[in-house]
């Protein structure tokens, strides 16, 4: 089937980058299956990054199916790279099917009738739940509200993602864009900024606040807030620099400290 074509330059960039990342996944899955040759961990990290990037981008572009499936794959690969799940041929086979479906979804992109991912998604979920450490099991699939200072309502995020971010010593930030001011007046490309965030931490939630523009009965409003809940080992000033925003537009929700010997990727 031919690849999806789009007129949106940001979607084009996302699809091209995702296809490049996915092109190496088959070889890396093979290396993971043969863990014995010592290349498994590096390969697992690469496969994790591929799933993480596809997932985060799908969140940005509001592609629910793709986000959902990539998130499950990311969860399984995370267990493999932390040695909580042994990559048996059966498990790697399920991941291969998962990535094939991801590529399929990317070909269908904004189809109103996308391919069904429910069965595969359920199989990946079962793998995750069976192998999560006991303390993490109750958090799987749970959503929690993160109380955000000076901001209402609270932002909702995955309980497991939050726990993992805290456990690896990442601080939690709320980045507040105003798409009107920052994009129209300053010419910032939000996808470029989003990619930088993906490369340096974990995007926990993205909330575009369309309601702040009010209705036709309300006084006119010139703001379009986009809030990004973000976990990173970077310091506040580094995050502000990364997103090209003044420091006051970055809220430190939780200051955590990187722990020794814990990878922060």
């Amino acid at each position: 089937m031919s690849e999806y074509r789009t007129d949106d330059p940001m979607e084009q960039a996302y699809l091209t980058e995702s296809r490049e990342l996915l092109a190496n996944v088959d070889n890396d899955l093979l290396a993971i299956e043969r863990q014995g040759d010592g290349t498994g961990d590096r390969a697992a990290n690469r496969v994790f990054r591929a799933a993480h990037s596809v997932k985060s981008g799908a969140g940005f572009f509001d592609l629910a199916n793709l986000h959902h499936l990539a998130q499950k794959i990311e969860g399984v690969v995370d267990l493999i790279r932390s040695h909580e799940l042994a990559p048996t041929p059966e498990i790697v086979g399920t991941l291969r099917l998962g990535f094939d479906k991801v590529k399929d979804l990317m070909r269908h992109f904004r189809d109103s009738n996308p391919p069904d991912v429910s069965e595969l998604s359920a199989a990946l979920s079962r793998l995750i739940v069976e192998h999560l450490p006991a303390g993490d099991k109750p958090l799987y699939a749970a959503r929690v509200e993160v109380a955000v200072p000076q901001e209402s309502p609270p932002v909702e995020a995955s309980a497991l993602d939050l726990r993992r971010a805290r456990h690896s010593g990442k601080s939690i930030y709320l980045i507040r864009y105003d798409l009107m001011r920052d994009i129209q007046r300053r010419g910032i490309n939000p996808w470029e900024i989003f990619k930088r965030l993906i490369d340096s931490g974990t995007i926990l939630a993205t909330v575009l606040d369309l309601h702040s523009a009010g209705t036709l009965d309300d006084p006119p409003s010139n703001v379009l807030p986009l809030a990004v809940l973000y976990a990173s080992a970077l310091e506040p000033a580094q995050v502000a620099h990364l997103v090209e925003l003044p420091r006051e537009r970055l809220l430190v929700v939780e200051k955590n400290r990187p722990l020794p010997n814990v990878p922060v990727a």
Partner: protein
Amino acid sequence: MIVLTREGDKAVIRPSGLDIVASSVPELRTQLRGVVEDGARQVVVDLSGVQMVDSSGIGLLIAAHNSLHRLGGKLAVIHASSDILDLFHMMRIHQHFSVSGNDGERG
């Protein structure tokens, strides 16, 4: 000049030769509010001949979307120039209501 066409619950508004900027937004807002109050639920804003939409114009279109969404209706923007289409893409608002370009390309 703002050209208004009504048919059933559909209304097409064409701000012909006007940019959707701070100076023209109040009049357009009045027109949009009028057609929605008058029962229009499928509102199309035709941007043929519109060169520029500034932040107050984008705020107005989102407000129209919010009003219609509450009432179970829909806003669509058609015939946007490629510059305006790019701007809508950058702001991700085309994920919330339909935006199409001059040659019918979907946003």
